[in-house]
Each structure stands twice: as C-alpha cells, then as structure tokens.
C-alpha cells in the first residue's frame, strides 16, 4: 500500500501545484454554492483531464471539496434562514436509500444510455427553468407568499412552511411547501442518479424544490446545499477509508473551495430569484452537453 502510494504520488507531484488546486477549488466553490449543486461537475473533469489525477483520487478529492463547500455555504445559508432544515432532513430519508440502490445497480446499467437519457431530462428541465412562463411564476411566487403561509402547524406541510429576509427584494418572503410526496420521489431518483452518474443530486433537487414543491429559488439552493453536505459526507468517508484522500492534494482544494463558497453564497443572497434561475438553466444546458459528450465517448 505504501509502495503504491509512493509510486503514484511520485508521478502526480510532477504536474501538480498548490495554486492550480486552490484556483480549481475557488471556481468550484463559487459556482457550486451559488447554484446549490456542490461543484463536482467542475472538480472531477479538471482534476482528471487537466491535472492528470487518477479517477479514484479525483473523485475522493472532489467529494471532500464538496463537503467543504456545502458546509461553508450551509453555515451561511442557515444563519440567513434561507435553508429549510426540516424539508432537507425529510428529503434525505429518500435520497440516501436512492444513492445506496444506485450504487448497487450501477454494474447492471449501461452508463452511456443512462447519460443520454439524463441529458435529455436536463435539457427539458433547463428549458423549463428559463422559460418565460416559469420566470413569471417565480416573480409571482415571491410576491404572493409574503404573507403567513399556513396556520395548520399540525400538518406536515404546515411545519415545513418557512420564511426568510430577501435582501434583493428588501422584504420577508414566506412560502409553503407543496407536493411533498412528489418531492420525496424525486429525492429518491436524485440519489440513484447521483450514484450512477457521479453527479451531485442538486442538479435534480433544486429544480424539483423550485418548480414542483414551490420553494423560492434561493430557498431551494440553500436547502439543496444543506442536503449535499449530509449525502456527500458518506461517500467521502468511504473514499477516506480506502486511502484515496491525499492530504496535500485536498488541502489547497479545501482552502480554495471555502473562499469560493463564501463569495458564492454572498452572490446568491444578493441576486434576484429570476437571475439565479437563468444561471441555473444555463448550467443545466452545460451539464446536459457534458452528458451527451460522455455518451459519445468524447470525454
């Protein structure tokens, strides 16, 4: 094991430097925390294609960086009351089993077919996110829900209702959570796909919470960030146990990611919900493109 490590790191040390890793972490932290997606979509390709890390080391390092990113962002989002902790915990009850099942069936499903199907789904969601009809509804959502959302505190939906101060709008936004069973089903689906495709579940969870469950975009991003912290930790601990986490590779990544996450959360707090939706839609188009390239074996 020690010999393997030494040989591997001898090769790695030739092409790596602290600044490249720190810079990669900063970009991933900024985008990941601003969009509530973790940042693995940036980290894994850069660590493998540009920095030539072996895939297991790249994924392990990426998972640790995502935990750092989501913990930093979750600390800020929960302080600003943006993250819906109760909803996040509830959705985790189906997301974690989904991730386990995804890990168990991964050997039986052709990744190329799955990538192509997922790419098509993402294209549709991206179109929906930037579509005029839904952009209007986001605006209405923020305005209409500025009153007390639900007085039935004994119901699940009532206890999931939440509110936060929107700096961009200059007032408190209150909202209620609808279609909880659909959200739980989508959480399960997100867990399976995150294991099968190695993507963060935020790509699915944010649109579902926003479009289906009625959360404002900022609350959806913040809640997704809180959930990613819990889900990703399990994967990162597994990679840590198997010896794929290298301290001197992860250290600059973590520093970069934390700085990026602080900047990203500030961006998300200041930005308008519609702008965030548009940026998220563009992000989904890019991920869909990556999925099609993966299907075609280009990357």
């Amino acid at each position: 094991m020690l010999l393997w490590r030494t040989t591997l790191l001898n090769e790695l040390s030739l092409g790596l430097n602290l600044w490249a890793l720190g810079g990669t972490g900063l970009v991933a932290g900024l985008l990941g925390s601003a969009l509530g997606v973790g940042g693995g979509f940036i980290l894994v390709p850069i660590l493998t294609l540009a920095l030539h890390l072996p895939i297991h080391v790249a994924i392990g390092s990426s998972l640790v960086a995502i935990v750092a990113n989501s913990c930093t962002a979750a600390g800020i989002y929960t302080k600003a009351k943006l993250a819906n902790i109760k909803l996040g915990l509830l959705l985790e009850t189906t997301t974690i089993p989904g991730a386990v099942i995804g890990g168990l069936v991964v050997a039986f499903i052709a990744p190329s077919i799955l990538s192509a199907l997922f790419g098509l789904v993402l294209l549709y969601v991206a179109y929906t996110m930037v579509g005029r009809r839904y952009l209007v509804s986001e605006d209405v959502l923020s305005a209409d829900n500025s009153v007390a959302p639900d007085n039935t505190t004994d119901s699940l939906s009532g206890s999931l209702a939440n509110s936060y101060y929107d700096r961009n709008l200059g007032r408190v936004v209150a909202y209620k959570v609808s279609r909880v069973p659909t959200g739980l089903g989508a959480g399960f689906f997100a867990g399976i796909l995150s294991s099968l495709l190695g993507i963060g579940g935020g790509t699915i969870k944010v649109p579902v919470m926003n479009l289906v469950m009625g959360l404002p975009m900022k609350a959806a991003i913040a809640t997704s960030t809180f959930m990613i912290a819990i889900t990703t930790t399990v994967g990162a601990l597994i990679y840590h146990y198997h010896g794929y986490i290298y301290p001197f590779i992860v250290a600059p990544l973590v520093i970069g990611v934390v700085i990026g996450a602080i900047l990203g959360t500030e961006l998300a707090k200041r930005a308008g919900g519609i702008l965030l939706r548009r940026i998220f839609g563009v992000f989904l188009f890019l991920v869909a493109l990556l999925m099609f390239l993966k299907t075609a074996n280009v990357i």
Partner: protein
Amino acid sequence: MESQKFDDSRLNNWLSLGFRLGIAVCLALVIIGLIMLLSLPGAKDIQPLVRLDQIPAATVISVGILILLLTPIIQVILSIVLFSKTRNRLFIGISVAVFCLAAVSLVLALV
C-alpha cells in the same frame, strides 16, 4: 405558529454555529499543515509528497479533513437533540432515520 418560528430560528442558529465551527477548525488545521509542509527544507513544490506517511504536516491536515467530514453527521445529531428539546416527535423520527440511513449506507459500502 410563533412557537414553530421560534423553534426553526433556534435550529437554524445552532446548525449554522455547528457548520461554521467545523469549517473554522478544519481550515485552521489545513492551513497549519500546509505552512508546516512549505517550511520544510526544499519544499517549494509538492515533491515532499513522496514521504507522505512520515510527514507530521500530513497528519495535521488529515485530522482537519476528518473533522470536516464529521461536521455534517454532528449536525444531524444536533438536530435530533434540538427536536427532542421541543418534543417535535415527527422530526425527531425523521432526523433519527437520516442518521441511521447514513450509518447503514456507510457500513454497507465498507463491508
């Protein structure tokens, strides 16, 4: 409704504190570890990685990373404690379920 808002606010405050504390300790150890590495003679690049297991700096960073990885798990435990204080049985159950599911999936992956 007011009582629920108060509970949610307290939950957010405690979890925020937990996350920030975890990140602060991790970041401090990671920075100390990197400074220890860079202060080694001839360590202007990452070449000393070949002696990974013998460098104290690696141990310091590893402890920081482990604290980081345990932070979200501690937050779930903290949620159980906070929901227990307000006797919110539904969310005590949900938080316990999340903790158990995380533990089971970890065990399943390791065996």
